[in-house]
Every structure is written in structure tokens, then in C-alpha cells.
């Protein structure tokens, strides 16, 4: 199926449910088919602007963009309203999860890495010290 068709098809399904929130897990699954960065940027832009028009709040999940090459990353970050990076790093020989609010357009936010835990209550974030 064409990428453009997929975008329209996804939107129609969401519309048929009267949804206000949409989660795409993961957007990279279909955009990864595109090798050309310029085309990828265009398709991603189309996807986001289409969803904006439909007034959905969309959570686009994807693999670590750092692994995907800087040019792809920058285009995607500039198109969306906010970017949240989830990381897994080694600290004192133990692996910890961290969350970084990389971008939040028009919203004052605490930058840097925040400790993230997954527990019985769900996801818990501990804001980093310093504010």
C-alpha cells in the first residue's frame, strides 16, 4: 500500500471511532520503507499536517532517532510539536531508564534527563534536580 494511502486509511479509521487521541506505534514501521531523506521528510510532513487538520492529539512512537541518522532526525523533530526521548543508560553498573523532553513547542519545560521507572502504577517520572 502507498504511504499516502496508509495515512488516509489510518485517519479514516480513527475518525470512524470519533477518536481525539491517536497513537501510532510505530510510525517508523512504514516510513522506514523510504530511503530518500527528502521524500521521507515530505511524507512525514504530510502525515503530521493531515493529523493536525483532523485535530487529533497524536503520539507517534518510534525507535531511537539517534540511530536513524541526523538528517532524518532533524526533519522529524522540526515537524512535530513536541519530542520526548526515552533512553536506557548504564549508571553504576545498573541500567536505568531516562526521559528527556527534547522539544515542547511553546511550553516552558525542564530540559535534561529525568529518571523514569515502570512500576505497578504505570510510568513514573522523577524530575531532575535543579529545575
Amino acid at each position, binding site marked *: 500500500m502507498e504511504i499516502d494511502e496508509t495515512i488516509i486509511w489510518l485517519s479514516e479509521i480513527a475518525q470512524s471511532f470519533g477518536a481525539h487521541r491517536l497513537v501510532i506505534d510505530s510510525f517508523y514501521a512504514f516510513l522506514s520503507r523510504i530511503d530518500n531523506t527528502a521524500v521521507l521528510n515530505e511524507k512525514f510532513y504530510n502525515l503530521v499536517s493531515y493529523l493536525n487538520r483532523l485535530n487529533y492529539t497524536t503520539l507517534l512512537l518510534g525507535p531511537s532517532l539517534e540511530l536513524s541518522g541526523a538528517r532524518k532526525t532533524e526533519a522529524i523533530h522540526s515537524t512535530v510539536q513536541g519530542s520526548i526521548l526515552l533512553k536506557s543508560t548504564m*549508571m*553504576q553498573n*545498573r541500567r*536505568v531508564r531516562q526521559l528527556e523532553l527534547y522539544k515542547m513547542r511553546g511550553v516552558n519545560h525542564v530540559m535534561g534527563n*529525568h*529518571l523514569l521507572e515502570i512500576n505497578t502504577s504505570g510510568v513514573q517520572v*522523577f*524530575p*531532575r*534536580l*535543579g*529545575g
Partner: protein
Amino acid sequence: MSKAYFGIEGLDRSLENGVSYGSQIAVVGDSGIGKTVMAGEFIKEGLRCGDTCIYVACDEPPTAMREHLQSFKVGTPAYEEMGRLIFIDAYEESGSTEKYVISDHRHLVKYYALEKEVLHSYAGHRVRLVADSLSTLLTMVDTAEILEFHRTRLKHLRKSGILTMDIFVSGVLDPQVMTITGHLYNLILKMSFSSSRYSPIRQLQIGKVKSQQFVSSRHIFTISPIYGILVYADMGVGE
């Protein structure tokens, strides 16, 4: 605004104006000098004058402090039931039966989050907070993170009007960290053994009182099993 005291006569006499709520006190002392006894006296005094007391147990389980207070004839169950005495277990990483437990000692943000949560639930009360010993929690953490933690935490405690006593074991933290940290506290108490090899003597010294005049001479003190810390009048010892 009311002033607080330690409940240790000789020390309170040296601090005629007492300490304000919202002040931070650093107690720095050798291992075995009596820092926990001082913490116990501080809590006992707080309970006596109507404060809500929060004790963070880092070096021993909270039960040890309960027993310690009971040895000074302070029955803890009644105060705990009334919500006037609260223990935070920062000793057991798992298997604690306490209501408030720090399950992961590596992340100061988690400690800070729990401490804030507990303090928030006692907002509007006159609160004393004792962390015994805070240096234990900081041993596995980078210097930059320790300093950030102190700055953020102490600012919050000051703003919230919490009378705080943080205990540090001498020599555990880097001297440079201790010097920078010391600047953030209103009052510093130093407890040490005298250099006498044959008859060690306990000594107490006021190291700093922010914006106040104070006498920094050392005072000999002993620990009585009945009366707790007994500070002797200044005899110019160690000068």
C-alpha cells in the same frame, strides 16, 4: 515567630536566640561521637513543644531510633498514631515494613520526591526533619549531583519553613564538597573526639551561625544514659 531549641541545655545556652523554623542545621561528627543521640534529643524536644518530627533513618532501621527514644522515656507509638512522629526508612532497600521507604538509594531524585511528598502531607504543621546520616545517602553519587541535590533540597526546605537537621559523618564526603555544602546551612555543629590518645573526650563546637554572632569555642560533653547529652560550660578546652 517562635524559635526552636535542641533540648540540650549547654548547647541551647550558647544559642541564646535559638534557631528559626526554616533553618538548616548540619551536624558533622566522628563515627560514634553521639550524632544520633543528638538527633534523638532534637526530636524529643520537638515532640515536647508540639512539632511534627520526621526522622530519615539511613544508617539503621527506624526501629533503632524508636528504641533509642524509648530509652529516653519517649513512647513513640502514641506520637506515631497521632501523626506527630514519622519515620522514613532509607536503610532497608527491600523488605521494609515502614509506611515510607526509599527503595533505591542510588537516585537522589527519588529521595527528594519522597521527602517532598511526606512534607507536603504535613503542610501547615511546624515540622522538624532529621536525616541521619545524609552522608550515607550521598556516598554513591557524583559531586555535581550532590551539590545540585543540596541546593534544590535546602531551598525547598527553607521556603517550606522546615527546621532541618542533616547529619554528616566526618570523612565520608570529599572535603571540598563539605566546604561548599557548609555554605548552604544556617548552622553547623561539629562533634569530635579530642586528640588525647589515652582518655578520649567528646567535644562540641558551633562552627557557624549565619548572620549571628556566636562563640566558636569547643565544649566538652558526655552522654548520660539517663539525661542524654550533657554539655559542660566553656573551659577553653582545645584552644
